[in-house]
């Protein structure tokens, strides 16, 4: 059982409130752009393996807001150590959500480690994430969307998505512009 990625993203962010979102490079960035642009989205166009750590720096700096990193299995695998690093700080306002389709979609659907049984939820648990979910159907996704508004301990969720490739929806790609509008949305000088 797996979910359609665009619909899954739309469900997660439909009622986002104050949520700050860092999507990993590639498909999750396109999914978030397709769900609707917002200055509080910091789209990564590169820095593979860095999404979770961008989220950590942001969560520590903005302790009163919730931060969600929404990235793909390949991107998460490249920064697996960052789950251990987050496990040492355990910020209560940081959620890491991995859209797992078991393939590297941007590069030709080559199988990722998760297709061979590597268990990202197990890794997150072992790294000290208090709340870990393996989301495979609509009810679990709705519960995750609700939890994104209330969680108070580090949250990790794997969302099983189908290995499809919907048409790309490309967000702004000027990194300086993305940074400045994000900071402006938080009332910071840009």
């Amino acid at each position, binding site marked *: 059982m797996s979910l359609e990625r665009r619909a899954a993203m739309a469900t997660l962010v439909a009622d986002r409130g104050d949520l*700050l979102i*860092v999507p990993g490079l590639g498909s999750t960035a396109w999914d978030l752009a397709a769900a609707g642009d917002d200055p509080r989205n*910091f789209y*990564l*166009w*590169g*820095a*593979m*393996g*860095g*999404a*979770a*750590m*961008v*989220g*950590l*720096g*942001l*969560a*520590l*700096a*903005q302790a009163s807001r919730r931060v969600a990193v929404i990235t793909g299995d390949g991107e998460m695998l490249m*920064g697996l*150590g*960052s789950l*251990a*690093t987050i496990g*040492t*700080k355990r910020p209560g306002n940081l959620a890491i959500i991995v859209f797992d389709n078991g393939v590297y979609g941007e590069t030709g659907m080559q199988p990722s480690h998760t297709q061979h049984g590597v268990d990202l939820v197990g890794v997150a648990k072992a790294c000290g994430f208090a709340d870990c979910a393996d989301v495979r159907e609509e009810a679990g996704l709705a519960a995750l969307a609700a939890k994104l508004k209330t969680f108070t301990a580090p949250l990790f969720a794997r969302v099983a998505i189908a290995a499809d490739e919907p048409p790309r929806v490309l967000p702004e790609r000027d*990194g*300086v512009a*993305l*940074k400045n509008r*994000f*900071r402006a949305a*938080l009332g*910071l000088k840009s």
Partner: protein
Amino acid sequence: MNAIPEWPDRLYATLKRAGVGQVGYVPDAGHSRLIERVRADAEIHDIALTTEEEGVALAAGAWLGGNRAALLMQSSGLGNCVNMFSLARSCRFPLLMFITMRGEWEEFNPWQVPMGGIVEPVLKLCEAEVYRAAKPDEVVSLAERAAQRAFGDEAIAAVLLSQQLIGKKVWTK
């Protein structure tokens, strides 16, 4: 037996004056005193990293949220950062790094030489401004300049703390 150097305490005070609120580091002997000071400071988030490139992404996130970050590493760690620097370069994120040097003065371990020897050109290729402190009394003024460059100009700045400053690693006890 060397006296315990005091430049790390002055460097810590410099980071405080610069308003640094997050310090990422991979544990390193040359930075041990500074790491100790940072860990004891309740106003600074100290973040032990599994690899240095995590710190480059951390610093970007910190700046997005209005915090200033510094990154401490050894010269060997610089090589781990090179692709992640594209985040700082593409978005002009401030990135302030303090790099303890290995592979130069009285190095016993030849495996430290290949990376230590290319730290400066690699940083320059990555558009970083590079400063080198060889004497204790140079550390503060270079750190101040680097912090100004990083946070004032939203740029990459690195202070190299030379092996003469750190002292040689003792291999037999």
